[in-house]
């Protein structure tokens, strides 16, 4: 028992968890044909069958049921604040499964040149009343029932009057902001709190304009929109939902990482010494002092960032994204690739922090400009 717990605790440590997920993710949600072949070969598409769904559900259920025997796990999972996140885990899993199941199902139909499941005769219509409104009404009543039962059963988690001399530890944002809060660990507020959220919204708005693929409209399909679905799923599941789950269950006092079965000890210490890229360059690699000139000091980081955003896109356009570039054209491609690079900067920075204790790539605290 304790062995299982300690294995899970170890697996939940950020580097391992994140690496595992990133490595396996594109095999489950293939990005291109190569991954797709592996997906088939490893039979990973069996997730999206009824049996796979039930298995997933049972695994989740067993995990939580098992976890509830552990005092630390119980304390965190059953906290009224966190109950919605447990619900979120099940719901996200369910809806992902549901959509993927339908998509995979349709893929088979398409392959066999059959009509997709959602296919309907353009003349075949149903009435708004009662077919739509009645159902909505019933759903409304049942949702209200659920909310009332929930609010009576789990009292609102009110806390003490805010005290400026005693902030709660850990101080957590509302659950839907925990992904952003997690980003704050790796980026300055102006990036994690302003730039990234704005880009997310802009990116979501840009999707219809970037996605020129006419296939898969009005019905679920995976194969026809493999890259679109997988990239989106990566952003949604890994860069958003996973960060919320980590923020809720794995971040404890002092924002330290704790395994799901670990006691949230206020006094746990984790080494948190980080250094900037410029310090790496000058002090460790060149073994000299730091230049006084800010620009000179940070030139390496600046070059790196510029290279990331200016050199990588044309490079990719010429190499393994050639097809995409040809399909999207210059402007769409540029917007698309910049958005993707921004999204990727998040895991990249996380890894740099974990592996080499990198604090900032560009550090100009004199002007509050750190990247």
């Amino acid at each position, binding site marked *: 028992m304790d062995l299982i717990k300690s294995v899970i605790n170890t697996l939940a440590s950020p580097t391992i968890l994140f690496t595992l997920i990133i490595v396996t993710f594109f095999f489950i949600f293939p990005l291109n044909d190569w991954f797709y072949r592996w997906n088939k070969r490893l039979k990973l598409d069996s997730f999206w069958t009824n049996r796979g769904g039930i298995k997933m559900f049972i695994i989740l259920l067993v995990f939580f049921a098992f976890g509830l025997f552990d005092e630390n796990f119980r304390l965190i999972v059953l906290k009224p604040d966190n109950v919605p996140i447990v619900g979120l885990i099940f719901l996200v899993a369910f809806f992902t499964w549901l959509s993927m199941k339908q998509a995979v199902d349709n893929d088979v139909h398409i392959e066999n040149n059959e009509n997709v499941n959602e296919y309907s005769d353009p003349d075949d219509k149903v009435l708004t009343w009662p077919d739509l409104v009645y159902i909505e009404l019933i759903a409304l*009543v049942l949702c*209200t029932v659920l909310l*009332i039962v929930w609010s*009576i059963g789990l009292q609102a988690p009110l806390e*003490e*009057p805010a005290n400026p001399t005693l902030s709660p530890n850990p101080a957590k944002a509302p659950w839907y902001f925990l992904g952003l809060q997690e980003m704050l660990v790796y980026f300055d507020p102006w990036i994690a709190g302003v730039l990234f959220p704005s880009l997310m919204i802009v990116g979501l708005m840009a999707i219809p304009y970037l996605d020129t693929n006419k296939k898969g409209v009005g019905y679920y399909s995976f194969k026809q929109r493999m890259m679109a679905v997988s990239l989106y799923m990566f952003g949604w599941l890994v860069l958003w939902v996973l960060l919320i789950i980590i923020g809720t269950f794995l971040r404890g006092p002092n924002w330290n990482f704790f395994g799901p079965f670990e006691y949230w000890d206020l006094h746990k210490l984790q080494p948190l010494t980080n250094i900037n890229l410029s310090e790496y360059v000058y002090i460790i690699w060149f073994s000299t002092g730091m230049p006084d000139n800010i620009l000179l000091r940070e030139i390496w980081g600046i070059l790196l960032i510029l290279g990331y955003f200016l050199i990588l896109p044309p490079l990719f356009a010429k190499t393994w994204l050639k097809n995409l570039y040809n399909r999207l054209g210059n402007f769409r491609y540029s917007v698309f690739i910049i958005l993707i690079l921004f999204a990727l900067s998040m895991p990249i920075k996380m890894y740099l922090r974990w592996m080499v204790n990198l604090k900032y790539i560009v550090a100009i605290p004199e002007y509050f400009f750190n990247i």
Partner: protein
Amino acid sequence: MAEKIESNQERLYDISKLNILFAVSSIIFLIVLIWTFSADHSRSWKDLQLQFRQLQIEKTNVRLAEEKTTLSELGEYKEIADRLEKAHEEFQKKSDEVVIAEDTLFSLKARLSKVEQTYNFAKADFDAVKYEYEVAQAHDLDNVESLKKKFESLQNQLYDDLLIQQQAEKEIENQTAKVQEFRSEIKRLENEKNELTQQTDILGSKLEKIDPAHMTFSNKIANAIRDLPFLDFLSPYYKVDQVVIKDLTDNVNFTRVPKVDRCMTCHKGILKAEFENDEQPFKAHPNLDLFLSSKSPHPVEEFGCTSCHGGRGRGTDFVSTVHMPSSPEQEKEWEEKYHWHQLHHWDSPMLPMQYVEASCFKCHSNETSVKYADKLNLGLNLIERSGCFGCHKIDKYKDRPKAGPSLEKVASKMTKEWAYNWISDPKSFRHNTWMPRFFNQSNNNDEDSQNRTNQEIHAIVHYLFKNSSEYGMDSVPIKGDAKNGELLVSSLGCLGCHQIAPDPLNQKTSIETLRKEQGPNLVGTGSKTSLNWVYSWLKDPQKYSSSTRMPNLRLTNQEAADIASYLSSLTKKGFSEKSIPSVDEEVLDEITLDFLKKMNSDEDSRIKRAEMTFEEKLDYNGEKLIRMYGCFGCHDIPGFENNKPIGTELTFEGSKLVEKLDFGFIEISHSREAWFTQKLKEPRIFDRGKVKLPDEKLLMPNFDFTDDEITAIVTALIGFVKDEIPESKIPERNERNLAIEAGEELIRIYNCLGCHTIDGEGGAIRPTIVAWLEGIAGASSAEDASLIQSFAPPILDTEGRKVQPEWLFNFLNRPTMIRPNLQVRMPTYEVISDKDWNKIIKYFQLKDGQTLAYENPHQISKSSSSYMAGDVIQDLGACNNCHFYGSTKPKQAALTWAPNLSLTKERLRSEWVLDWLRDPQAIIPGTKMPTPYVPIDEQIEDVESAWGKDVAKLHPDSEAMLKALRDYLWGIEGQQDVSAIVKRHLETEGYGFIVEDEEDEW
């Protein structure tokens, strides 16, 4: 169309299934809605109020039954009831007459209404015509004349109507009187009966309100529906009871909100004394005279509940009010009964009952002893006595003298070896010393630490002895008699502050026992210091230490030598012989390096250390260690005159957030009380399991407090809160209160109550007096309370009214003999400044309501008749049996001697003397002074013949006679200091104790 709708062909879903689904979900919704209301409506406090109501009904019924029985057994009541019955019978007999009279009254009333109507109409007409007539007259109209006539006729008419009306009224009045006459007897008897049944009636009407069985039908219906959901907004029976105190606020960090206490929502019986024996939550407050009731000094409307008890006043259930258990057993019980758990979201949880007195301190922090709060007082005294404030700044103890003795001249007092052993383990020398143990504690008792601390002690001792200044000790000039010394120690008053207790007394610590520990327990004095030192110390304590509170007892050389040789004979075996680890330079080097590294780099530290000689290392470490351990917090040590205390400030420790207390790895409940208790019990415990360098370890020494002492100290600590108290709640800061506070503080500091008694407090020395009396006069004398009192230090009640302030000031500075036979000696306190003496005198004065600093002295004329009468009265009263008249000795044996009356004029206040003569027992119960006899019951002729005409003139006014006596006292002159006479007398004749059981002269 209709066909289409009926057939389901056009439907995606089956409509009848949807209907069923809708019906089911609607029903679920309805159930949930009802659940919402019932969840909202059911509150735990309502159940409790229901129970309380039941209890109240039962109680009232019992009391009503009792009242009724008492009433039925009351003869008076029976008699009235009988008479009432008879009166009713009488009335019945006359019923025909009554009916006729009542009918007449009825028709008379009807007639009156009619007459009144007629009058009102006439009046209206009259007013209208009057107006018209006035207008016509003013404007000279033509119809003036006709209007005038009309006006006049109406006026007459109105007058006639008025007469008729008055006539009718008169008739009604008469008839009413007649009717009432029939019932008057019944009414009178009923009134009488009501007076007797008042109590039962009150109980009965109370029951009508609360007990459905006693309710009227309509009230029963109201009772049934008034508490139903929705309807309960109108006038529910079960409702939240609360007090809102506008000027007391709860701090919610960013703002303050008025205190709202809803405790009485469940604690319904809290204000009702009749519930004193009931179970919680209905039990009445145990001290309604002091708290809550409107007549008490802390009425609930002004103070609420949580201002003292803590907790969340707005809460209305057991957990949300943050009740706190007093013991682990209670905690367990609550967990089972109420699903109790501590609500962590409230910074001031309720105080567990054993600490509740802590709250008194909030408002009464300026008082030296808070009345009725014995535990708090003990805690405050323990903090002072243990010298907590030496290391922990506490505003309450600002400028208090240091708790331990001065070490400025320590080398003259003891040997280095003794000092080493003492510092290493003080309790092994003196079991009840207040010097705490720093070494061999849980965080420094491993071998490495011990090796290190042994060297630390060497360094400390070295520093102290090296920096000790010269003390010009006298050598004992005469050989002392230890036996007499022992007698002197027990009779002079030493034992008001000191004890000589070789073994633990196993008594509960109280303020009383602390008074006897003002100075050290004198056991082992001979092993600690030299005969010469004790002698010199006794002769002049200030010479050794200018700040010592040890007073000068004005001992003669012989007395001092006797006491010194007695004290030197008290030795502690085995202590000085304890082996002392030798100085180990290697370990010392380590310590030196650690200290040096704090200010220097490693390399520099090593260089510096290499440059130090062995002696310098000892010096250096000694200084650093004294600074580190904070020895200067309790002792005067040269070189540490201006150092700041080393510990955490405790002024507001009671408001410290629990989160700021380091519980380390110790698993105790996370509350302030638990932490403080643990810390006091085992000060170093929070180091357990931690890896620490020697200089990072916790330093608080171990005082070996008992559990009771810890509870008391924790009570005080919890009381040190930061709450802002509005001025209206604290005891008035008037001149009297300020003077009393200042005086009480000094009285506490100098331990006056070790000997004296004020307001029934103090007199710690009395048992010693008893022992001394027993020694010289036998057991029977030692049982005589008034005899003990006559040899005990004076009771200082009414002192402010009693003595003249100038005299008191002089006396306090240079005490002189008052009661000649007293062995106990008022010492000279050279350390008390004039300013402080003034505070003390002012304390006595204002306490007794004396506000004047200067008063006209009492004037007498020796040729006045009053003075002459006084002379006669004193002579016949035989005052000179006990009192000195100047140098004239009293007639009786020294046993009964009383103050020299020649002191009276300068010492006493005339007004007080009169009170005293009137009834000495009223002022000092148990005094030997009798009430002087004045002849007022005798015939004036007899008085004149026996007492002379001056007294007869005053007959039968006892007051005037006492005044005469007082005048005489004011005229007594002569030698004031009779100490030499007394001494000679006692040497030759002794006290004259009658050791046999013979009748006393008194």
